[in-house]
């Protein structure tokens, strides 16, 4: 009974009818892909879309349409940052998706995320780019703006990326430029500041 109670209290699983998306409450210490530990001072919602085979975790505070924090940990060289589309017409090959390769420089890592957010036809412009430390490694921090193709909403974004032993560790966050981003960005900064590579 205790097990059921703690499961009920600590994990809220919503199975959205018709799409199979699951949302789980995450809190305290979390480990992304078994390799990057983050300490959460407040709860987030971890979202796994239907058939979720993405190489990153996605967390949100207010819902996927409003804010998304994506986290990559120990992504090996040669891996895609996002799964290629499945519904490719017969006889066609899938379009390219951004791929992390060994030896990428900070500017090239930023390019990966620029393409990642522009891939659906959204307009992306990269803002301030500067060296930083992420997950205990020297890396790059970048700011960006997205005009979302789906609905024209103006989003602000921020990202971090670092490479260790030819594996990519990264985080990126987007939310509507007005109200949501200014309110949520400090929470994201706290998550990112706590990130540490394991092993």
């Amino acid at each position, binding site marked *: 009974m205790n097990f059921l109670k703690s499961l009920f209290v600590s994990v809220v699983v919503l199975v959205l009818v018709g799409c199979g998306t699951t949302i789980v409450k995450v809190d305290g210490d979390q480990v992304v892909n078994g390799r990057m530990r983050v300490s959460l001072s407040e709860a987030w919602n971890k979202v796994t879309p239907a058939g979720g085979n993405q190489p990153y975790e996605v967390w949100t505070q207010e819902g996927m349409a409003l804010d998304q924090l994506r986290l990559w940990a120990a992504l090996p060289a040669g891996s895609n940052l996002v799964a290629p*589309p499945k*519904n490719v*017409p017969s*006889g*066609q*090959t*899938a*379009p*390219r*998706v*951004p791929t992390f*390769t060994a030896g*990428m*420089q*900070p*500017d*090239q890592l*930023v*390019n990966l995320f*620029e*393409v990642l957010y*522009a*891939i*659906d*036809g959204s*307009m*992306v412009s*990269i*803002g*301030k*780019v*500067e*060296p930083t430390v992420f997950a205990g490694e*020297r*890396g*790059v921090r970048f*700011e960006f703006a997205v*005009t979302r*193709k*789906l609905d*024209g909403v*103006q989003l602000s974004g921020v990202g971090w990326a*670092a*490479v260790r032993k030819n594996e990519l560790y990264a985080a990126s966050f987007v939310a509507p430029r007005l109200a949501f981003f200014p309110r949520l960005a400090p929470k994201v900064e706290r998550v990112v500041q706590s990130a540490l590579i394991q092993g």
Partner: protein
Amino acid sequence: MQRFARPSLDTDEGGLWAMMDREETRLRRSPFLLRDKALTQYVQDLACRLGGDHCPDIRVHIVRTPLFNANMAPNGMMQVWTGLLLRVENEAQLAAVLGHEIGHYLERHSTERMRDAKSRLAFAQFMGLFGVVGALGQLGVLAGAFAFSREHETRADRLGMQLMQRAGYEGQQAAQVWENLLGELKITGGEDVGKRSPMMATHPPVETRRSDLLQLAGEGGGKLGVAEFRSVTAAHRMDWLQDEIKRGQFEESLVLFNRMLAAQPEDAQALFARGEIFRQRAGAADLPKSLADLTASVAQEAAPVQAYRSLGLVHRQLSDTTQANQAFEKYLSLAPDASDANLIKNYISGATL
């Protein structure tokens, strides 16, 4: 041909117009709408010359999206995407595409298509092509070119040819549009893509369409309008090239940029764009190619400032610190407030990631 009266709201066609009116209201507010009066007026004037008596009913909107697409809704709303403007080489090719869309409009194909749609999903997919969003990812570079039936496409090709030739343009340019697109289509569609439709088995193969258009065009010459087209699009071209690069479809972009450079080998913007694609793709043989293109770009008087940045990054990857720093210094002198200035200064200082 007589102008169309607005259909009554209690008819299916009236309902379609009302939906398109709402979409147009949305489009007018969209951040994707390119608000350049001169460019919009230029395309509007061209559409008017093609549309003749229907000119007062045609309203052109330029939409900033890096895919080849134009469409015309039954209420007269015409969308022209910037990926199309980047790809056509002259006014005659633009006239060919707009003439084709006006052909669909004159024959009210969208109304027929609406009545043919067998399901809500089919109708939604068809309607989606007229929205600001369009059916993006799935259709790739040729977004929206397969909204209509084979018969509709053939008729629109014929009508489009008549309209462009009546307006004084060289008809062969309509076939050239497909010829140019074929190279890009082969990247995801394979070498034999021209022998079939890249999207729908019911549609005429690209090669058939191209040869049919050549036959329709006949021998007659006509205006190309190269200078006018380049002049009116010049202010936006660098943005559109960068939008194309951000698609991340390196091989398709290389086909496009190779074509641009075959026409104008000293085109500083296209040299930058191709060099940047090679730099970002970073395959085994890409860096020397990138270096050659970017070096050629900065040798031009009209070199874009971004070419110096990219050149510095390539030199850095090739461990040529002196040349890298020279290019970076030039970049920072031309763009002192660049958003990545701190990163570039970090590179100049010799720090490593």
